[in-house]
């Protein structure tokens, strides 16, 4: 009896030991597994402060991409690892953006960072990514972002100089088409890195086109009132008003132009605030017949874009705009790079980004471009822009793609020049 119970004791002890051992091994395996099963990506957007709407829209668009990617099996080369995005809030302030970037890299240990919408915030963040050796797949349009020889900064956003070049081309084309060209121009722009870059490129491109600049006006983007600038515009009476604004200032500017009845042949924005879905409800009919110049529009015929736009609108409550579409695409390119790197090591992901070359049917880029690769500065090789006019269709104010002709929405002719305020119904 005694012997038997002793045997039993030993048997129980062995069983328990084995169980514990199995548990520990299993747990450790699980933990190891969990590490490779999740890849951390940092994203910095202005989630609060005056640019909170676009920040929240960007996050919503990025979330959709991440969900799609994870549902489709995550990152293949890492055994189906899932992508997890950790968001940082720049509040629209460069100093906060830099701090958030440092936190994402040092505390959360993300493998790659994307963001930050504003050029003025993105620019100092590139320095942080360079210092820590973590790739920064940046948005923002200021040329400088990829022109300082940094090895860890990549961008598939178009540069401001490309935007301005195509914007001026768009307006010149319209002038030729209707035989009523713009000869004088007013420049109105917010005074941070983005607006200053636009200003530099306007001087060059408008100068080459032989357009005389009659007003050259920068303003602080947290301004209370743009009426003083608009009074000046009215007195100078330019043919074309070229503006570069974030959303709150774009709303103030366009509303005040309507109130003060400033007539011009063309009033044309430069993406950003003008393309923000808050812009149309903010200004109402004041924006009718004004123009914008952007990389992508929902009405450009691209396979599958419509379904995505509907999904986005249902989930995020606003129409898809060019900035959100680009950010959505960015998430796919990040996954492609991690997949090719086969690692969560930031250095290896950087090398993969450098070598990446994606062609059109690939879901990574199919909605925006036909081909994507980076040049030696980390900048995407090209980006084409489209021209848009704000029009009222079936009682609804819409952005209608009108230029170039091959992507223009069918059945809608551009209105050029813009009708005078006195000829419109108020």
């Amino acid at each position, binding site marked *: 009896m005694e012997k038997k119970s002793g045997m039993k004791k030993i048997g129980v002890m062995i069983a328990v030991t084995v169980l514990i051992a199995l548990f520990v091994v299993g747990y450790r395996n699980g933990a190891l597994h969990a590490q490779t099963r999740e890849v951390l990506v940092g994203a910095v957007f202005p989630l609060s402060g*005056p640019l*909170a709407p676009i920040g929240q829209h960007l996050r919503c668009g990025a979330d959709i991409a991440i969900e799609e990617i994870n549902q489709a099996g995550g990152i293949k080369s890492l055994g189906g690892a899932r992508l997890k995005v950790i968001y940082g809030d720049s509040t629209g302030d460069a100093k906060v953006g830099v701090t958030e970037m440092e936190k994402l890299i040092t505390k959360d240990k993300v493998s790659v960072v994307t963001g930050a919408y504003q050029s003025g915030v993105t620019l100092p963040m590139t320095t942080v990514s360079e210092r820590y050796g973590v790739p920064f797949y940046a948005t923002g349009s200021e040329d400088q972002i990829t022109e300082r020889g940094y090895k860890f900064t990549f961008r598939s956003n178009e540069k401001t100089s490309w935007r301005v070049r195509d914007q001026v081309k768009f307006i010149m084309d319209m002038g030729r088409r209707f035989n009523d060209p713009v000869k004088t121009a007013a420049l109105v722009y917010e005074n941070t890195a983005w607006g200053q870059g636009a200003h530099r490129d306007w001087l060059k491109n408008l100068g080459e086109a032989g357009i005389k600049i009659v007003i050259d006006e920068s*303003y602080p983007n947290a301004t209370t009132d743009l009426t*003083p600038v608009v009074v000046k515009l009215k*007195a100078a009476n330019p043919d074309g008003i070229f503006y570069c604004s974030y959303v709150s200032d774009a709303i103030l500017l366009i*509303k005040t132009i309507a109130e003060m009845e400033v007539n011009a042949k063309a009033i044309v924005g430069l993406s950003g605030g003008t393309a923000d879905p808050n812009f149309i409800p*903010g200004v109402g009919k004041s924006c009718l017949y004004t123009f914008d110049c952007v990389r992508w529009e929902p009405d450009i015929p691209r396979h599958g874009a419509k379904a995505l736009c509907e999904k986005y609108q249902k989930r995020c409550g606003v129409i898809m705009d060019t900035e959100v579409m680009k950010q959505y695409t960015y998430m796919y390119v990040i996954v492609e790079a991690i997949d090719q790197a086969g690692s969560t090591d930031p250095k290896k992901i950087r090398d993969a980004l450098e070598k990446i070359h994606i062609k059109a049917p690939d879901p990574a880029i199919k909605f925006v471009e036909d081909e994507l690769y980076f040049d030696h500065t980390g900048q995407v090789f090209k980006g084409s822009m489209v021209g848009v006019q704000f029009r009222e269709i079936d009682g609804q104010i819409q952005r209608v793609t009108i230029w170039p002709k091959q992507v223009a929405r069918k059945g809608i002719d551009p209105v050029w020049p813009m009708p*005078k305020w006195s000829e419109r119904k108020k």
Partner: protein
Amino acid sequence: MMNGSHRKVAPKEKRFHGGEKMETYIQAIVNGFLMGSMYGLIAFGLTLVFGIMRVINFAHASLLMMAMFLAYGLCQVGMNPYLSLIIVVPVFFGLGYVLQRTLIERALKMEAGVREPMSVLLLTAGLLVLFENLVLLGVGPDYRTAKTIYTGATFKVSGIIIKTAWFYGFLATMISYFLLSSFLKWTWLGQAIRAAGQDRDAARLMGIDHYHIYGVAFGIGMALVGLSGTILVPFYYIHPAVGWVFGIGSFIIVILGGLGSTAGAFWGGVIIGLIESLGAQFMNATWTIVVVYGVFLAILFIRPAGLFGLKFEW
């Protein structure tokens, strides 16, 4: 469509250039005066609270934002924006009174012997962040604009365009300024408020319940914030961070005009409005900010108490 309507642009008429320039300047002065008076109104509440309680209310900006949201909400249910004053102003008076009696009074009592209590400063700064983020969570980050009959409406006086909503805003400023000055000068409660502002201990010895008086004063300050928010709604966008746009300007106006001086707030606002509006006709709009701060520094140098900053203002 309208493509052919004015394809050939007639050569611009040669107008009398001096006259055209003059018109622009008059337009700029009118705009600057109207907008500036509203800056003054926004700063009123801030200067009143400081003058009487010696409390710098950092939450001013987010309270303004909340007033705008309340007025906007009332507009959305079909109320005339100026009629909504009968709700917004009493609600904000009550909110101010309650804020004072519950939170600020406690902080004041903790540092009763200190003339400019620090913990109150921190308290109001905390409320600023709290209110803004609560609203951001509650209503989301989107920009809204009220669609009222005054939105975008203008009228002309001999060629000068006047925005209807600005004109009403100006009227509201003048009326509230007149009413407030009369109240402080001629009523018992007004005199008690001034007394508590001049010397809280002496006032208490005269039988004035100075904490109740502070509550009323803070309530009046907040009622003015409610009024400012309401008159902004017909022409301004509404957003959880909108307070910041006006916030810093209000502090400059208050210090420029003299801390605690209501006349100073009005004229401080008008000066800033005129510099922004008229100054922009001669220089870049970015530079007008430099001029604003330059004038601000110059006045502080010449008159450190501000333009109207007397020791006993009332």
